[in-house]
């Protein structure tokens, strides 16, 4: 299998061209996941770019992104494949309508219909099967796996270890291109040891100030450099405050865009307190931040 990236630097710059600035540990792990051919489990707080990372990998390698969004109750039929029962029923009914009871061809006819209804035409492929059957390189993103039930993990174990899917009526389908698999989790549930063991593990935390500033200036190029520095510093200060939900990178970017839209060129308490809702999503947190930064008082 040809590697997608030749070195850590190559991975890093390819991701950057795809619009994702990766820290060194992230670039290293992406490179390793590719070099070792292992799935890649990403954890971290919401909004630090877990999903974004796999999109960037897809863009950087020119692969199709196939996404399986997990939720409670997601099952084999939603993740792997499903027979289109309604269509099969229609097919059977249609066969029955043309059936001539006098000719005694009942047996042969049923045999044909049976063969007919378990073919590709009646198979609805869901993300996992789609990734395995694809004839071009793919990135398979299994998003928020912690939301799914434990049973789905057993299914994944099989798919992720051999990259093969067995459909009893059709036989085993082997992947032509090993997909680059990214699993994400917000850790609301512990994933099983068996699954964790098969993956490389990466925890993405809020980025360091310098990195975050690069991200902001990439995503919001119109923002003035000194203003973007103060934006990042203020967000950093908010993260130190033990809030219910700390602002994430996505929110920093939103806030930077808001500031541009409002035409602010310098942070002052009034501007910050009127736009704090972009960063903080709980009234409690807004109150804490307002009190700590003393936002009701103007600058001296």
């Amino acid at each position, binding site marked *: 299998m040809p590697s997608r990236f030749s070195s850590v630097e190559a991975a890093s710059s390819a991701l950057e061209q795809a619009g994702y600035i990766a820290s060194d540990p992230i670039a290293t*792990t992406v490179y390793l996941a590719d070099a070792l051919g292992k799935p890649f489990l990403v954890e971290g707080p919401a909004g630090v770019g877990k999903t974004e990372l796999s999109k960037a990998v897809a863009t950087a390698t020119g692969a199709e992104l196939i996404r399986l969004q997990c939720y409670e109750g997601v099952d084999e039929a939603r993740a792997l494949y499903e027979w289109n029962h309604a269509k099969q029923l229609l097919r059977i009914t249609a066969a029955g309508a043309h059936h001539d009871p006098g000719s005694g061809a009942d047996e042969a006819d049923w045999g044909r219909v049976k063969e007919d209804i378990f073919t590709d035409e009646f198979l609805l492929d869901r993300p996992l099967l789609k990734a395995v059957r694809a004839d071009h390189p793919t990135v398979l993103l299994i998003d928020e796996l912690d939301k799914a039930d434990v049973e789905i993990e057993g299914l994944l174990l099989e798919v992720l270890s051999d990259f093969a899917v067995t459909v009893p009526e059709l036989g085993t389908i082997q992947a032509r291109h090993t997909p680059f698999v990214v699993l994400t989790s917000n850790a609301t549930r512990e994933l099983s040891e068996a699954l964790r063991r098969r993956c*490389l*593990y990466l925890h993405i935390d809020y980025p360091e100030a310098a990195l975050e500033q690069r991200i902001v200036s990439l995503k919001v190029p119109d923002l003035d450099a000194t203003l973007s520095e103060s934006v990042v510093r203020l967000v950093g200060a908010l993260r130190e405050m033990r809030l219910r939900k700390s602002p994430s990178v996505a929110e920093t970017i939103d806030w930077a865009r808001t500031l541009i839209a409002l035409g602010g060129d310098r*942070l002052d308490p009034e501007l910050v307190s009127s736009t704090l809702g972009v960063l903080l999503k709980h009234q409690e947190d807004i109150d804490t931040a307002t009190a700590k930064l003393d936002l009701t008082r103007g*600058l001296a």
Partner: protein
Amino acid sequence: MGSPDDALTRRLVDLSRSLRQHGIAVGPSESADAAAACAALGVSDRGRLRAGIAAAMLRREGDREIFDQLFDIYFPAGVGDRQTVGEVTAATGGAEVRAAAEQLRDDLATALATADERELDRLAARAVAELGALANDSTMGGYSASQTLDRLAPQTAIAAALQRARDGADTPAGSGEGGGGSGSGSGGADGTGSPWRAEELSDRFDRDEIRSRVAAFRRRVEREATRRNIEARGTERISRYGVRDPLERKDFLLTGREEAVELQSAIRPLARKLAARLSAKQRRHSRGAVDVRRTLRRAMSTGGVPIRPAYKYRHRSRADIVLLCDMSGSVSGFSRFTMLLLQALSTQFRRVRFFGFVNICDDITDLVVGAEMGEDIRTRVAEQATIARWHGSSDYGSALEDFVDRWLGAVGPRSTVLVLGDARTNGSDPKVAALRTITEHARQVVWLNPERSSAWDTGDSVASRYGEVVDMHECRNVEQLRQFVSRSLPV
């Protein structure tokens, strides 16, 4: 994988063995992955090597702290004095130490002000070399992080750093007055900024920024001291004793003040996780028999063939929780944590009531519910509730009896009663009959004991006498408490 680099392989094996000693499951397959990662990455870049091995060996973020410490032990950044530090001599004698500390503090203030990571790293190395050497011969040339930090007192550099950061920020912006003659005075500024300078919004949080940089500097010093000590005392010893356990596995009974604050901040995220798990459990339990009407309605979309059955939902009443907490000094840290955790989880239950006792009981529900985040609830309980009579030492027997006499109405057939305490009665009558009365009224009674089970029944502990009547669980740390809440607590 090519021919294994023997020295590297041995280190990886040692590292994984040490990780196992610290309770992190790292098996041969992880070690093999790590070796493959090393082969792919090469060993020239230590940061990437660390990231690569961590990706292969670790399974959860909570283990990262231990891993980082052990990685520093088995893959040290260098040997001896670092070249970047230049000539250093360990300071000896009071005056010399003070002068060296003064000089370092000044450099530190500048580095803190500009957030110069490399310089901070270098200063940590210099500080340990100059101030951290242990004088005593019996310590085999070891270094002490706490001695370094005591002598250097990095927190005293905050004020000067703050002043320099603000002056530095002004100069390039060209806002007029600029540098001024504020000098590098070690401490005069009180943080309100120079009077002739316009206030910036960042002035309201830059003190906190620098404070957290100081905290990071302390960790650097600790890492550096560990690195130096490995040379003196060997990897084996340091990896076993020189590594801090993460907060999750720290004994409640041994947590100090600072750790208690950290624990408090862990309550929210933990409660959120547990709540998600408990409500998933609730939903799973609430699936009932096939709902014929809805199944047939659904079948219409598949030509009358019921392919996807629909289920009824059973309505289940949520559990009542009653906590009986020993509030006496020895176990109050544990009680406090558990109370706040269950309070944070209270939406998952029909009702949560808290009773505190030392030797008599009092209802402290309102006090717990009204507690602010991070507040020490003990002072309020001491002021507003009566939990001790005649003397201040705990007496489980009379507290249980008092509960049965006055508060038994709080316990009903749907209640789960949790008793928190170490079952040390100070020699008084345990009055097991009172506990039995509670079990007869409640759905379930569970005792959570913050002592290790091997210490039960030693001294004045009557754990097994109570254990005959109720289930007693060892609940020494956050990890065990989390497991208890997610697995054993009825929802």
